[in-house]
């Protein structure tokens, strides 16, 4: 009986109960807002990449379109992606495009500013399957490609374009 109701035991119980209550007091608002923050999203095999692309360009269901563009080009050639060094949106978009561009090898150029003319002019067009501009500007001398929402343009390097 002595040990069951000793001061030490009471202090022990009070300490841990206090810690438990304080932990819940601090955690519950954060957890509650985390649980209720987002509604259920549409599910699908590409739901994460679609969400990223929608966030960056404003266009829904973009992954499938991009995959079919890349699949229509020569798989043995590279996809070139231009992103802006100072723009995290642009870098994130570039990485998502690189993810979708399989089985092509990719090369990502992080450029200062928005005009990749210098880098592009040095490239051999016969080694490139497509050029992707992520929040960067396509040089005027390159034929227009497909534009998706704000800040994404994909130029497939067909024979016509190469000439």
């Amino acid at each position, binding site marked *: 009986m002595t040990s069951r109701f000793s001061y030490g035991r009471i202090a022990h119980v009070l300490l841990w109960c206090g*810690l438990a209550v304080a932990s819940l007091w601090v955690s519950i608002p954060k957890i509650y807002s985390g649980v209720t923050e987002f509604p259920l999203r549409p599910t699908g095999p590409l739901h994460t990449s679609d969400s990223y692309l929608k966030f960056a360009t404003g266009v829904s269901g973009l992954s499938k379109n991009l995959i079919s563009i890349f699949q229509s080009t020569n798989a043995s050639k590279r996809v070139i992606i231009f992103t802006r060094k100072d723009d995290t949106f642009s870098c994130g978009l570039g990485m998502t495009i*690189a993810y979708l561009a399989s089985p092509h090898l990719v090369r990502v150029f992080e450029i200062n500013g928005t005009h990749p003319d210098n880098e592009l002019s040095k490239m051999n067009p016969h080694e490139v399957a497509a050029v992707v501009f992520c929040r960067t500007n396509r040089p005027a001398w390159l034929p227009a490609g497909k534009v998706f929402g704000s800040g994404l343009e994909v130029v497939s390097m067909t024979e016509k374009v190469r000439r």
Partner: protein
Amino acid sequence: MSALALLGAFGTLLVAGYGVLALLVRQKTRLTLTEQIAFSWLLGIGVVSLLLWIFGLFVQGVLLPGLVSIICLSLGFVGWRQTVPLSLGRRGPKPFEILLGIIVVIEIASVFYLSFVHTLGWDGLLNWEIKARYAFANDGIIPATYFSDSGRAFSHPEYPLAIPFTELWLYFWLGQADQFCAKTIFPAFYVVGIFLLVALGRRLAGRTWIGLLVAAFLFFVPQITVEVGSAIAGYTDFPLSVFYLATIGYLFCAAKPKNDAFFRLYAACLALLPWVKRDGVILWTVAAACGVFVILATRKSYRSLLAFFPGLLIICGWRFYLNAMHALQGSDFLPVNLQTFGSHLYRIFPLLSALLEEFHDLRIWSLFWFVVAVGVAYLLRRMRDPRVLVLVTALIVPIALYLSIYVFSSWPNYLDHVGLSISRLLMHVTPVGFLITMLAVSRRSLKNRARVHECGVVTCVIAGSERTPGVELA
């Protein structure tokens, strides 16, 4: 259709894991149902991902999943022949335990809901799922060009494959790469983490309700449930923490004589640590050092040292494979040598300050680290017990090693590197922090043997306090 396919994928994983569990336990030790499910999952993940990788070196296409399925079913047959003895309590659950059980079930449901509401996190998609997707598109093998493609260096081709190849296993069953279905793996890890905490609560503290109570609090650590890199984001940090929990928890239980089955379970989970994440090598080193200490302190046979061989084999095998593939190495860290260490020593105090700041961040950790600090203070008096020393070491040393690694960070601002990743690294030892809390909370019950008997289950407390580990083998 997808649900059936997922059921098939999960079923084969669990069957294979159960077979391995049966081989490790050898009908000598009773395990609770939650333990059996938890270990079937962890070992199943290890077996299936390793088999996909190894067989992928020789076969591809339909043959690869077919071959792995046959082995899974064969292991299941072994499990059926050598059923793991089930540990059942002598009494039914108390009302308080039922209440805690209901709370835990609601939390698990919330984690599943959260997992489906959120997309895969950044690393979840671009570091981990990417490997599963590329392997699936290439008949089950990651294309050799992926490892040396500089344009995809951001996705860390050098990271190990336990989680990506579990996703790949799902894709084989589904017949397509599916980012949504891939997420189902991660709440399953949460369930396994909860099961292990409950089971270890019973073993360490001798009472089921302590395990249930502590497991219920796992949900209230924001970093585990809702923060970036949490259990639902598709990152491998939480799965790694569950493997580490199993490793250290069962090493604790193995530290008593005639608990060889627990030591084998420790060895199996230890081997898988470096296969889950690259940082797992650090956890492997710490857990292996703890294992050596336990072997020496408890005078186990020197044959026990063989337990470290599978892990070494995986570490070396993966390194050899990366070299053969000419894989690009990550550029986040400078070469680790004395010269770099000396020239970057000035970083130590800012790093310590960043760590303290992280501990104080209530938005991410709530009061978790404060509670753990109180728990460690409680256990200081019991440090002569090698098991307690192991537990505290397994918590503190990985944190120290993780912090020291930032001394070698190659980021222009190394504190940005810390800010971005330290919370996820600390997650690896979070469940071990819960074990320490459990032991501290149960301080009184350790002295009260009558209450320990009340459970009528196999506990480390029984073994520890009465020197009758044989009770467990009844």
